[in-house]
């Protein structure tokens, strides 16, 4: 009796052909994008979206053409942080036009499709019982559609703001083109380092993307009154983490109230408060990544401790 592998095709649906068409569409869409950069972390609450948005602004401030895809389907925050709340995606022959944020940053996110900002993401189904069996697959398909069907146009960098979890980067590895990179965000605590280290180890094993380095977010606190920087989390040494993981330590981002206010208002800190330590840190990170953007894909290693 024949086995599965003895039979060519699937009898009529041509699922493999449909998947092949999707791959072709992905390659075509990404052909106008120089670099794809995933911002990731095993740990939640470390500021991935903040780093994504402010780094995007810092890169755009330097003249790069930037897009952001908010890959956090259920916890999207990039729309608010870029000030594009209320913009409606335009659907045309070349795909769905993204929202346009400050400095021309193009934004695509699930909440652009929702009827209101706080509406939950809910999917039609005959039954929601045991939704865990299909929901993640469906959300991956939605993410793939947002990547492929968005009319990004010419971009120097497309940043992907991933949700927390060590599995997130490996899960999307099939969507990442050659020359893609990943930044890992942590905060200087041992708790964060433990989770981030696990995620980085998994990513180095499972993902083809270049691990560009670790960013130490909330590395210090900038006093709102005197401007002095002080320790915010006393527990961790992110440089040691980077050394253990054999990845570059790309720098430290201080926290300050104006950063939180800028994110709430959808404003770029680097443009509105360029002389603050935090804005300078993001600009330093953007400078480092500017070298990476210009490198050929085969020579993507970058130097750490630029910030």
């Amino acid at each position: 009796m024949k086995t599965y592998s003895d039979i060519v095709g699937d009898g009529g649906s041509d699922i493999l052909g449909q998947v092949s068409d999707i791959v072709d569409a992905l390659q075509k869409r990404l052909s106008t994008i120089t670099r794809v950069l995933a911002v990731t972390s095993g740990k939640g609450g470390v500021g991935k979206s903040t780093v994504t948005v402010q780094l995007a602004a810092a890169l755009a401030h330097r003249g790069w053409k930037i897009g952001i895809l908010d890959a956090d389907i259920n916890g999207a925050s990039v729309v608010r942080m870029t000030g594009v709340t209320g913009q409606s995606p335009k659907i045309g022959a070349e795909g769905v036009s993204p929202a346009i944020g400050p400095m021309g940053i193009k934004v695509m996110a699930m909440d652009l499709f929702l009827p209101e900002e706080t509406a939950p993401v809910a999917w039609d189904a005959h039954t929601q019982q045991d939704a865990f069996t299909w929901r993640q697959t469906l959300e991956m398909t939605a993410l793939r559609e947002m990547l492929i069907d968005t009319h990004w146009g010419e971009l120097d960098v497309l940043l992907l703001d991933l949700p927390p979890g060590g599995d997130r980067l490996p899960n999307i590895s099939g969507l990442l083109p050659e020359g893609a990179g990943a930044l890992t965000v942590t905060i200087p605590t041992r708790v964060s380092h433990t989770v981030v280290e696990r995620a980085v180890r998994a990513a180095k094993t499972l993902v083809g993307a270049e691990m560009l380095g670790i960013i130490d977010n909330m590395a210090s606190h900038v006093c709102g009154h005197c401007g002095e920087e002080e320790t915010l989390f006393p527990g961790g040494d992110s440089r040691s983490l980077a050394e253990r993981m054999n990845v570059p330590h790309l720098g430290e981002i201080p926290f300050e109230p104006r950063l939180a206010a800028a994110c709430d208002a959808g404003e770029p800190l680097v443009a509105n408060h360029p002389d603050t330590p935090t804005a300078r840190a993001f600009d330093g990170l953007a400078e480092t990544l500017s070298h990476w953007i210009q490198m050929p894909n085969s020579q993507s290693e970058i130097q750490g401790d630029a910030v």
Partner: protein
Amino acid sequence: MKFLCMTCDDPMNLQKTEGPHQGSMSVVFQCDGCGWQMAMLTNPMETQAVRSLGVKIGGATVPAEPMEMLRSNLTGVRADLAANGEGSAPAQAAEADAGNEDGAASKCPFSQMLQTGSEETPTRQEFITSVAAPPPEPSSEGVAWTDAAKQRIEERIPSFIRPMARVAIEKYAEEKGYSEINEDVLEETRGMFAA
């Protein structure tokens, strides 16, 4: 997923799809060799699993609309999205899906799963009737059937299993070196199909 006709040891081919009805799809496969047909009936969770992959059962005859799966499956979509002109295609496709159980124009949860052919979706009874119709006669070049033997399997073997029985009996006759299939041969195969 692939289906194999165990009698012919050949892959079966997709004939038609229907549904979903109450979360279940009916997908009919047929063996081109013996005409044997079978219907795969999915439960709601299986239907939803396929739907989540963003592929179409029965093949994709037209390119998908931008973000078709996302826009068709979100329970709530902002009202001004479809107002952008070309963005209403998934809703229009759902409107055309007259067979959906809810009759909801824009919210058919499964419309994008099925091949978007030009034929109208059959009613459930039409579908059952078409599936139950006699499949094509199997080609039998080597062994002839007597009229009595033909009549006997028509009377004694249920229609849904008849094509498979014909092929199996012909194979048996060929292996035995018989030049024709008569009632004696059917007696010998009685244990196989109670013919």
